């Protein structure tokens, strides 16, 4: 593995930075075209209702209205997963949650579109609803879709139970019998939203000839193309999707909510259609993450060794089948080397918006429950929380609780760094507690395409297919520069549209720096090979006798020939005479992605009179393999930590008895604001991932996993009372006191 880096580890400016600080960058809602219509969506005011009829005639008759559509405008599709996506974008027959789309209009202005919405008459027949996970899973609950219950489940769970997973080895009961202390607790966590500041937005233009252009804010424009072309019944090749700058995603933009609607309206109206969600729509009708109800039982010896561990995770994922509890069950005990462990999970449907990924989907709540019980055991047995975690920590060679045996991982290093950090030994003020938690998340590989052109002036144009959500254009340029041996600012990396470079999977799973990085290095290798060939031709020596060193071709030794090195710029300048343009590309599906562990430490102060919790100090340790651009790695760690703090303290989807969402806005859906927080100190640990030539691990998601338990453990210490429910909002804390 490469060790001596020239570019990696430096902190150059991001290529999109200047546009973003001057207001030039084009996000989803920033694009307009002449002749464009404005669309709006009519949404269900009921949690669950049969749509008896929809009368759109008055809306259609309104001057300026160019198209009105309902679920009837969408033909059925073959794949059931695509059908769910389609029916989530526009209800067919039944409205399944408060905010579910039932009709849409396109008109010459926003004002006319809004007026037209009010003229659509929908007759509903209200049906019983369920929004709580435990109620939805219980036999007798209103079932959202028949025939989708997970295979092999019994009558003790309702038909809403669409997934069952179990991971582990050994027998937890054996372990509990050997333990000196066994604690079993039940936890609940609220559904939270990714909270990206940019609402979903798109501009669609689908002609009668089946050719379409779609501009949208997404984490994966190829995904958008595949799903939309299937729903619209057109060829993927005919739909060109361009990803705008994306104003935050965090998993929430890994599916479609409005794009098929805009395309259908455009098709019907014969004009381009712009569709932008309001913030209220974002909360009511895009995908929050799951709420959960979790049982955790852990048995420990007096010395702190975990003897047995068992978790039961029940996740609520909204109105359509989904598969996400699995990731929670896999993550729950991943930090520990255990002989007897089992983690089971159930995916449950309810009358809520269909969940979609949120940063390390499924893991934060599972790890919150496990790490809370770990903390309580340490308290009860008088053990140091970090020493105890070190005693049980997974390391290279550990058979993980979810199956594979770990290669090199950095949990022990992160724990040791945490223990040695001055934060851990700093004195604590009154009413203040210090919480610690481990966290874990996977990285993914997946399909990826990169195309790299060596320009005649010695610069490099690089096209990749993954929307840049956190600075990846910078890290990709850096890896290209490192591989080619040239300066960073001679490379420009852009995210191509679906017609300009090969397929790429969605930007998710902390995969981009890893997977696009590998493709970039391989594309560079291809270009280097060609450049060496050109040099060999010029020197009239064998191509094998040329090697690439520090950005230049040179003979492998005196035997190969005596020529001064020929730089990339020199080779590029005469490429027209030596065989034409030089480029490198790589399409592949890199595997061997690593996993990433983090350890967070937080001091929280609880006001005993009000239950108000404030974060006084926060330090986050994370193994990132190799930090390509340390400043952006730090940013990922800080941002993830703060999202986790919000999840722990104040963020929640609040539903009333009527099944309606009570807080669809930033006023009452309380994400952390600047004054809520101290500085967040990131500590980067680098234990290289053996599966990447530069040692890279994805770093984007892990940081949201530990904060929930870290904050909860801090609160428990500060108050002397433990909370078993998130968010730990002041009324709940005060009640517990």
């Amino acid at each position: 593995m490469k060790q001596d880096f020239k570019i990696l580890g430096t902190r150059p400016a991001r290529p999109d930075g200047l546009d973003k600080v001057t207001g030039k960058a084009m996000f989803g809602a920033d694009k307009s075209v002449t002749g464009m219509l404005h669309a709006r969506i009519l949404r269900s005011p009921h949690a669950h209702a049969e749509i008896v009829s929809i009368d759109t005639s008055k809306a259609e008759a309104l001057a300026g209205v160019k198209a009105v559509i309902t679920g009837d405008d969408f033909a059925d599709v073959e794949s059931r997963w695509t059908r769910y996506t389609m029916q989530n974008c526009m209800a067919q027959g039944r409205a399944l949650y408060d905010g579910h789309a039932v009709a849409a209009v396109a008109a010459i202005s926003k004002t006319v579109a809004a007026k037209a919405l009010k003229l659509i008459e929908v007759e509903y027949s209200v049906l019983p609803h369920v929004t709580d996970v435990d109620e939805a899973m219980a036999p007798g609950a209103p079932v959202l879709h028949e025939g989708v219950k997970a295979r092999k489940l019994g009558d003790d769970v309702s038909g809403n139970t669409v997934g069952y997973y179990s991971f582990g080895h050994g027998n937890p009961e054996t372990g509990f019998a050997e333990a000196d202390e066994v604690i079993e607790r039940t936890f609940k966590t609220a559904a939270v939203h990714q909270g990206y500041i940019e609402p979903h937005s798109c501009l669609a233009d689908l002609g009668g000839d089946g050719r379409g252009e779609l501009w949208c804010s997404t984490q994966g424009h190829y995904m958008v193309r595949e799903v939309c072309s299937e729903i619209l019944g057109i060829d993927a090749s005919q739909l060109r999707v361009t990803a705008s700058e994306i104003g935050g995603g965090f998993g929430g933009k890994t599916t479609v909510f409005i794009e098929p609607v805009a395309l259908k309206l455009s098709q019907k109206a014969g004009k381009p259609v712009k569709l932008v969600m309001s913030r209220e729509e974002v909360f009511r009708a895009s995908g929050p993450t799951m709420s959960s109800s979790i049982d955790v039982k852990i048995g420990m010896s007096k010395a702190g060794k975990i003897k047995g561990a068992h978790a039961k995770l029940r996740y609520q994922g909204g109105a359509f089948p989904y598969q996400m509890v699995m990731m929670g069950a896999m993550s729950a005990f991943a930090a520990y080397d255990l002989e007897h462990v089992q983690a089971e999970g159930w995916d449950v449907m309810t009358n809520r918006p269909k969940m979609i990924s949120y940063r390390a989907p499924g893991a934060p709540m599972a790890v919150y429950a496990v790490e809370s019980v770990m903390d309580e055991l340490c308290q009860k047995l008088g053990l140091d929380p970090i020493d105890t975690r070190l005693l049980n920590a997974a390391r290279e060679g550990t058979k993980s609780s979810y199956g594979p045996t770990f290669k090199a991982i950095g949990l022990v290093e992160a724990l040791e760094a945490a223990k040695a950090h001055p934060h851990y030994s700093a004195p604590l003020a009154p009413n203040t507690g210090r919480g610690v938690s481990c966290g874990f998340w996977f990285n993914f590989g997946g399909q990826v395409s990169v195309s790299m052109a060596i320009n005649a002036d010695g610069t490099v144009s690089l096209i990749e297919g993954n929307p840049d959500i956190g600075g990846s254009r910078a890290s990709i340029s850096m890896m290209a520069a490192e591989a080619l041996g040239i300066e960073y600012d001679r490379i420009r990396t852009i995210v191509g549209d679906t017609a300009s470079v090969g397929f790429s999977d969605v930007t998710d799973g902390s995969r981009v720096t890893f997977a696009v990085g590998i493709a970039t290095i391989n594309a560079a290798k291809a270009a280097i090979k060609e450049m060496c060939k050109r040099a060999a031709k010029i020197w009239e020596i064998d191509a094998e006798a040329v090697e690439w060193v520090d950005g230049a071709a040179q003979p492998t030794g005196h035997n190969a020939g005596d020529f001064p090195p020929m730089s990339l710029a020199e080779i590029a300048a005469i490429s027209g005479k030596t065989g034409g343009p030089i480029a490198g590309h790589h399409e592949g599906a890199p595997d061997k992605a690593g996993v990433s562990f983090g350890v967070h430490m937080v001091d929280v102060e609880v006001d005993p009179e009000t239950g108000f919790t404030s974060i006084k100090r926060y330090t986050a340790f994370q193994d990132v393999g190799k930090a390509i651009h340390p400043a952006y790695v730090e940013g990922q760690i800080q941002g993830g930590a703060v999202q986790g703090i919000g999840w722990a303290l104040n963020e929640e989807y609040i539903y009333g008895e009527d099944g309606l969402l009570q807080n669809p806005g930033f006023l009452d859906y309380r994400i952390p604001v600047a004054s809520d927080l101290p500085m967040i100190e990131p500590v980067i640990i680098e234990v290289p991932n053996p599966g990447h030539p530069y040692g890279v691990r994805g770093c984007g998601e892990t940081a949201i996993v530990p904060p929930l338990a870290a904050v909860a453990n801090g609160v428990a210490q500060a108050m002397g009372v433990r909370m078993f429910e998130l968010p730990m909002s002041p009324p709940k804390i005060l009640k517990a006191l």
Partner: protein
Amino acid sequence: MARVVIFGSLRAFTDGEGEMEIDAQTTRELLRKLATRHPALAETIDAGVSLAIDGEVFKEAWFTPIGPESEVVVMPLMVGG
């Protein structure tokens, strides 16, 4: 013969058999043989699975070589955020 470990909910479709030996040179061959041996798994395998070969995680990589001493863990397909 590679040692194949069936993990997660997949075990429900192997009549509880958690470990088995399968003679296969590639993941594609392994998955084909696994589906033949446990037809209840076929639907899941078609839909996609993740594989850990000696600790390294692979997704849908049909032609990945499998050594005779390899440990292959078959898991449900992983997704991210």
